């Protein structure tokens, strides 16, 4: 659905995106992970047609370049910044966007989306009166008014409360289940591990690794750490087969507690870049 080939985009001497290539298929949630300045937002801006790449190509389904009007009709974007009119009500925001997209029955469509993100009871309230989490949910709904098939979500859960986070993740999962291609950027490793089918780790404009979460961890995450507490003290073992190590410790006897520290995406990132994701 989304085909990105060797795109490059520089601002002056700084290469914001440097030879990025990936595909995102229908029904897939594709995570773009990386710290601030990694090039995620520039990659999204280029993939959604806001910026023209210096080189490389992007195709949205059969519609081709995202800068073509036909392709833009397929793209839904929830920018990192809350992009809403605060003086308008939640419904007015969505109705306006639905009209811009030429959606028939815009009010009905707006109410469907408000219901989907749990904001229908607040449909007539101005956005300025919403909490940060509610604004994030509406920001997501605004990306969906025209029923897009290629959805770009740039840090959609940044700074939200746990309730809104859960609601947003549920909606994102539902979008993928409906067969849409979703590109999802985030700082939060646990979110990526929870919902992303595949993940690309980005740093300094380049994709360092790409694959399923399990593949990345297996390839770059390193060994699990098994800690066995006994009367003799604490014993830590690095291993690729932690269950076997636990079995062995239990068979030897004397273990009072056993802990496993499995590698995660944070460790993958550390292994690939030499620094932590939120440094």
């Amino acid at each position, binding site marked *: 659905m989304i085909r990105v080939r060797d795109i490059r985009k520089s601002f002056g001497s700084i290469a914001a995106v440097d030879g990025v290539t990936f595909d995102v298929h229908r029904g897939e949630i594709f995570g773009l992970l990386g710290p601030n300045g990694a090039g995620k937002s520039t990659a999204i801006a280029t993939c959604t*047609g806001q910026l023209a790449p210096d080189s490389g190509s992007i195709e949205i389904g059969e519609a081709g370049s995202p800068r073509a*009007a036909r392709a833009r009709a397929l793209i839904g974007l929830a920018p990192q910044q809350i992009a809403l009119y605060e003086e*308008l009500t939640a419904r007015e925001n969505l109705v306006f966007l639905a009209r811009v997209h030429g959606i028939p029955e815009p009010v009905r469509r707006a109410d469907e989306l408000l219901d989907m993100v749990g904001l229908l009871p607040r449909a007539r309230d101005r956005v300025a009166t919403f909490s940060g989490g509610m604004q994030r949910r509406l920001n997501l709904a605004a990306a969906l008014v025209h029923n897009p098939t290629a959805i770009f979500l740039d840090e959609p859960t940044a700074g939200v409360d746990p309730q809104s986070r859960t609601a947003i993740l549920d909606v994102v999962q539902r979008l993928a289940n409906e067969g849409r291609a979703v590109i999802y950027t985030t700082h939060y490793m646990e979110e990526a591990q929870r919902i992303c089918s595949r993940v690309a780790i980005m740093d300094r404009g380049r994709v360092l690794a790409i694959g399923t979460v399990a593949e990345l961890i297996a390839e770059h995450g390193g060994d699990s750490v098994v800690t066995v507490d006994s009367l003799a003290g604490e014993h830590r073992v690095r291993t690729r087969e932690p269950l076997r190590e636990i079995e062995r410790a239990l068979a030897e006897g004397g273990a009072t507690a056993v802990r496993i520290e499995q590698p995660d995406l944070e460790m993958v990132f550390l292994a690939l870049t030499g620094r932590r994701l939120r440094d």
Partner: protein
Amino acid sequence: MRAAVFLALKDLRLLMRDRAAAFFTFVFPLAIALFFGYVFSGTTSEPLRVAAFVEQSSPAATMLIKALDEDGGFKLTVTDARAAGEQLVRRGEAVGLLIVPATYAEGIDGVFSGGGAKLGLVVDPSRRAEGAMLVGKIHEVAFRTVFATVGDPVQFARVLDRMEESLKASDLSFTDRLAIRTAMSRARTMSTKGADGSAATQSQSLADWKPVSVDIAELSMRPGVPANSFAISFMQGIAWALFGAVLSFGSGIAEERQRGTLVRLLVSPMSPNQILFGKALACFVTCLATEWMLVFAGMFLFRVEVSHWPLMVAVTLVTAFGFSGIMMLLAAGFRTQGGTQGAGRAVLLVLAMIGGGTVPLVFMPPFLRVASNLSPFKWAVMAAEGATWRSWGMSEMLLPLAVLAAIGVFGLTVGTALVRRSI
């Protein structure tokens, strides 16, 4: 096209939701128009400003003028010629012109012999309420002067002498003449020795007696001369209405950029040109709405007259177009809302001030009048005045309309190109 219209409607809704922006776009220009209108007309609680012209000097006329001058309700300007007095009324510097005719003294003398004095009053038709008040006050003062005349035994003797002459010339019967002579003899005695009748009886008998009548005429306002100060101030108000609209919408693109909604619009099927068209359309509609609001308010509240309706329509359309172009240039110049608003205020304020927003074009000193040519506000105000009190024809209107249209074409073309490059 439909999407651009929806964008414009959204912007208009946002404008109305923003109380400060709505105030400066719709209420402030009206307030300015009213403020300057009242300042220039002098219609405050101060004494009524009246011009007076005495056709022929006489003791009675002098007494009337002196009484009016000493009365706290008037601020009197005596002119040497009737035309000069009328000019004061036309300029709104006087509510009316009191004309004391050459026959006034004769009328006062014949006040008890069937004649009576007549005064003329020429009033500004747009200030009828003040004119009516003025008539009442003139009656009051004139009445007092007649009584002063009657109260003076010498003057009253002259009045009675005139009555005696009239009686001789009349063809009344002997008995009627005798009755009248008896009454006159009694009156002559009363004026020298004092009345013995009750005050109440005198007042009652005088209640319906009008020794002085005032003939009122409305001044025909000449084309090329404003009917009143509001004819000028409401056209001035247009400058401030345009100022508010341009400033509100000029920062609209920067605002969309800052709040991130521009990204949404750019990702939508709308082209950048459609987005900018929507912005310009919202500005155009607002300029048009505020212009007509001021024209209608001036018409219905202060009798500001539109001399040429088709030209007025053309003026408002072309002015709105021109200032939409200025809005686009402003939007192109700055990336942030603060920058646009700050610079916009600084530049537009100066242009509005030298363009007739504060000092009306008609009162400008020559050097300022030349400098005002640089201000698009001048051409807008002048065109609006042309379609109202200046009573211009198409040939006179061509220059301001052409200037405004050229500003619109330039602003929309260059501004759109520059904004497109920045988004």
